[in-house]
């Protein structure tokens, strides 16, 4: 006996992601899903952004890591509400994990919720968490071949921060190739060349983020 199903495999995730989106949008919260390889500088960028904008924007953070609480401690030290999710081996966050921790955050006192995904250029791109925008970091030490090797994430994101540009003089890497290949994959992508360490280029990122605020 044959049974027709025709059901999207990620339907359950998509349904929960929509619930998250409604819950967060309903409170006027802008939610970003921040993704990159391990070590690209997600936490450094986030800490710098919170330090620079924290007087005007109320941040909340969900940290996703395979194990440990290092990143959550860095963010908590800035006085920002933060919840750590440990995936215990899982390579990405999914909508259900995010939904399960939302009640632990003071949502009424958050303007921007940043979900820092597990460091990985592949799997996180496939799972909608209920965010308003996917944002990715690529550090130039990873090489200028990455957009064409990991096209999916570059296609899914609204904004790309090309990080660690202060190291460019020491590397054989072409910022122009990163930008051109990323834009070929995703012509609408906003590309920012920044150094989360030195602060170079961050004003344009802050302006983009400011444009996303709902308040």
């Amino acid at each position: 006996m044959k049974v027709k199903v025709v059901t999207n495999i990620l339907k359950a995730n998509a349904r929960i992601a929509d619930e998250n989106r409604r819950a967060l949008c309903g409170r006027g919260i802008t939610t970003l899903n921040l993704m990159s390889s391990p070590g690209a500088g997600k936490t450094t960028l986030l800490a710098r952004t919170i330090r620079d904008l924290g007087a005007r924007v109320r941040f909340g953070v969900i940290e996703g890591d395979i194990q440990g609480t290092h990143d959550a401690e860095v963010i908590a030290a800035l006085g920002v509400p933060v919840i750590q999710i440990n995936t215990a081996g899982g390579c990405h966050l999914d909508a259900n994990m995010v939904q399960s921790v939302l009640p632990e955050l003071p949502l009424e006192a958050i303007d921007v919720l940043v979900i820092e995904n597990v460091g990985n250029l592949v799997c996180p791109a496939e799972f909608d968490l209920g965010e308003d925008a996917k944002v990715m970091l690529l550090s130039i030490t990873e090489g200028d071949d990455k957009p064409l090797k990991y096209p999916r994430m570059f296609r899914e994101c609204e904004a790309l921060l090309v990080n660690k540009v202060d190291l460019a003089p020491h590397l054989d890497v072409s910022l122009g190739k990163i930008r051109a290949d990323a834009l070929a994959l995703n012509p609408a992508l906003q590309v920012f060349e920044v150094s989360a360490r030195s602060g170079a280029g961050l004003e344009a990122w802050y302006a983009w983020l400011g444009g996303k605020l709902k308040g």
Partner: protein
Amino acid sequence: MHELSIALSVLDIVKSAAADAGLSRVDTVRLRIGKATGVLPEALHFAFDCSKAGTPAAGAALEIEEVPIGGHCGTCGRDFTSPEPYVLACPLCGGGAFRITTGDELAVLDLEGEP
């Protein structure tokens, strides 16, 4: 690595569809997977076989119908398909004004089994 999450989602859908249709045993599960999803059929077969024990699909075979990336080019006006996992330009004329129409599929199509 995400093939395991996808295999578990497939099994959830299969369990629910089998219960709705009154199937006690599922023999075949057919999926449609687009090339642009990045899902590797071999890894998904492996993850499915590792996860199916104890479900009505414990003895089921997975059949995967792959869909290539296809699009319509605004420059030359033609429809195209590509064997690549991503498309940077129209493979027919090299133009950049194209839109992707197929390749993002990720669905359970049907299943076969016995009551």
